[in-house]
């Protein structure tokens, strides 16, 4: 904006006075501030109703209302700007300080503050260099947040049951992916069709990534084990949606591992940094996401064959070991042979011992038997006979002894006869006894008895003492009390 240049050169204005005064020929009355401001506003808006300006963003601030306030500046000037909410939401990028942009809109004034500003309808990044600069800044910011950390990367499933693909439903990309998948490992693919370029593309891609991530297992839409976010090659502008923070954040937050495959090998987007794996191309993504079925089948087959061989070898080895050990196992015969031998030995010795013993016995017998001759006995008989003969049996010796004995018998008989208690009876003595035959030696004893027996030489006589009743036996005929004298001779031999 250009101000009117040097209006104060007029001399009239130098005559300063204290009061404002009407001057001759001056038919223009003084304008109120509102009037001049309104005029100015009209002039500015008419003249600059549609402008495109290029400048660097500065002081970018998004108000709670959603309006975006900023300043555009270059080396020498500065222009305040505002972008109303509706337009601000449609911005294809996140405006940041320092980003060079081309803003399209109209100039307007703000009379209350003696301000003018640009109301921006559209804003674009001013050229590829500026875009790259913005990209670098966004990347640095998200990187600082840790969204690209290696530690966040998850491993892809080895063999996904379901593969989600976020891409355009038309075009070469999805065809390439499906082709390559069917070549390698025919799989269950769920495509989430999205715009991959232009207005709203970023939002769709982000929504699709989040949509897959939020799927519950077992729902009407099968939950993928891995998600491919893909787009074909293009300019940096074409791929821009995949640099958008919304997409980057959705990928980083996905609960399902994500492979990014955006553009060609040389194109790198922020989505690639956030993804768990970056594939250089969509086709490469298909190769990364599934193994080759034929190779797996071959591997299984190989393992199967190795398994068979391993067991066969193991069995053969086991058999061999068994055989070696069986050979070393001693036979029953060998085990028993020491005992058997010992038995043989002992039985042999037993036999020989018996023989030996008999031989010894036979020897002893022979030795002793030799000495046993009849002569031994006859010799002894002879000797005994001689001894017998030497004994002279003389009758005189016997007779002498008999005579001697007889003499003694006669002397003893004489003595006996002199000692016979009944001998005095011959001379008139009587032996008094009681009826039981006990000798009564004194009168007192006799007086106590009723009956007594008087033994005479020629016999006993029973008598009564008259001291008591006379027993009837006294009437009995007298028994011979004693034998006659001559009878003693026959008794005499009993004394010997």
């Amino acid at each position, binding site marked *: 904006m250009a101000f009117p240049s040097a209006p104060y050169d007029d001399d009239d204005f130098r005559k300063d006075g204290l009061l404002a005064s009407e001057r001759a020929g001056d038919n223009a009355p003084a304008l109120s501030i509102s009037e001049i401001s309104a005029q100015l506003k009209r002039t500015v808006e008419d003249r600059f109703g549609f402008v495109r300006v290029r400048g660097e963003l500065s002081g970018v601030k998004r108000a709670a209302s959603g309006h975006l306030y900023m300043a555009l500046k270059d080396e020498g000037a500065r222009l305040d700007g505002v972008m109303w909410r509706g337009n601000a939401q449609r911005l294809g990028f996140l405006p940041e300080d320092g980003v060079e942009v081309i803003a399209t809109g109209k100039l307007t004034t703000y009379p209350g503050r003696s301000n003018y500003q640009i109301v921006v309808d559209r804003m674009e990044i001013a050229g590829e260099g500026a875009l790259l600069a913005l990209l670098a800044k966004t990347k640095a910011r998200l990187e600082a947040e840790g969204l690209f950390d290696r530690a966040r990367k998850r491993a892809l499933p*080895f*063999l996904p049951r379901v593969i989600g693909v976020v891409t355009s*439903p038309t075009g070469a990309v*999805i*065809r390439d992916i499906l082709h390559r998948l069917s070549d390698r490992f025919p799989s269950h693919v*769920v495509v989430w*069709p999205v715009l991959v370029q232009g207005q709203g593309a970023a939002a769709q891609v982000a929504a699709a990534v989040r949509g897959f991530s939020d799927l519950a297992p077992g729902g009407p839409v099968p939950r993928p084990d891995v998600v491919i976010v893909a787009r074909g090659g293009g300019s940096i502008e074409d791929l821009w949606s995949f640099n958008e923070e919304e997409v980057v954040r959705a990928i980083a937050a996905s609960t399902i591992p994500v492979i990014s495959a955006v553009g060609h090998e040389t194109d790198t987007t922020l989505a690639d940094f956030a993804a768990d794996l970056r594939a250089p191309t969509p086709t490469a993504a298909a190769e990364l996401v599934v193994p080759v079925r034929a190779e*797996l089948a071959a591997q*299984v087959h190989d393992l199967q064959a190795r398994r068979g061989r391993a067991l066969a070898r193991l069995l053969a080895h086991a058999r061999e070991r068994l055989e070696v050990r069986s050979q070393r196992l001693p036979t029953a015969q060998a085990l028993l042979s020491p005992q058997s031998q010992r038995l043989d030995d002992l039985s042999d010795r037993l036999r020989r011992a018996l023989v030996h013993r008999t031989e010894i016995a036979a020897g002893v017998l022979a030795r002793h038997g030799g000495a046993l001759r009849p002569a031994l006995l006859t010799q002894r008989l002879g000797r005994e006979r001689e001894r017998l003969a030497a004994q002279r049996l003389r009758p005189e010796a016997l007779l002498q002894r008999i005579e001697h004995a007889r003499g003694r018998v006669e002397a003893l008989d004489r003595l006996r006869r002199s000692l016979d208690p009944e001998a005095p009876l011959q001379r008139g003595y009587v032996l008094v006894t009681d009826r039981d035959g006990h000798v009564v030696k004194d009168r007192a004893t006799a007086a106590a008895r009723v009956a007594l027996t008087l033994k005479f030489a020629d016999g006993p006589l029973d008598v009564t003492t008259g001291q008591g009743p006379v027993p009837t036996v006294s009437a009995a005929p007298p028994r011979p009390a004693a034998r006659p004298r001559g009878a003693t001779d026959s008794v005499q031999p009993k004394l010997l």
Partner: protein
Amino acid sequence: MASTPDIAALSFEDALKELEVVVRRLESGEAPLDESIDLYARGEALRTHCQARLDAAQARIEAVVADREGRPAATRPFDGA
């Protein structure tokens, strides 16, 4: 073997890995013979499982159909290819 998880519940990769372990163990000859027979049998079950997973592989291409709020509601056969 110390733990023998249900083979049907194993992913292809886990089954393949275990099959490899089984084969290597068999090949090492370290396992006792009885265990080797068991290992062999388990190897067979693992192989069958892997083979079934491979044989079951078939292409099935669907596209997500979103409802008005943009949420995935169903799928339909994908005809874009």
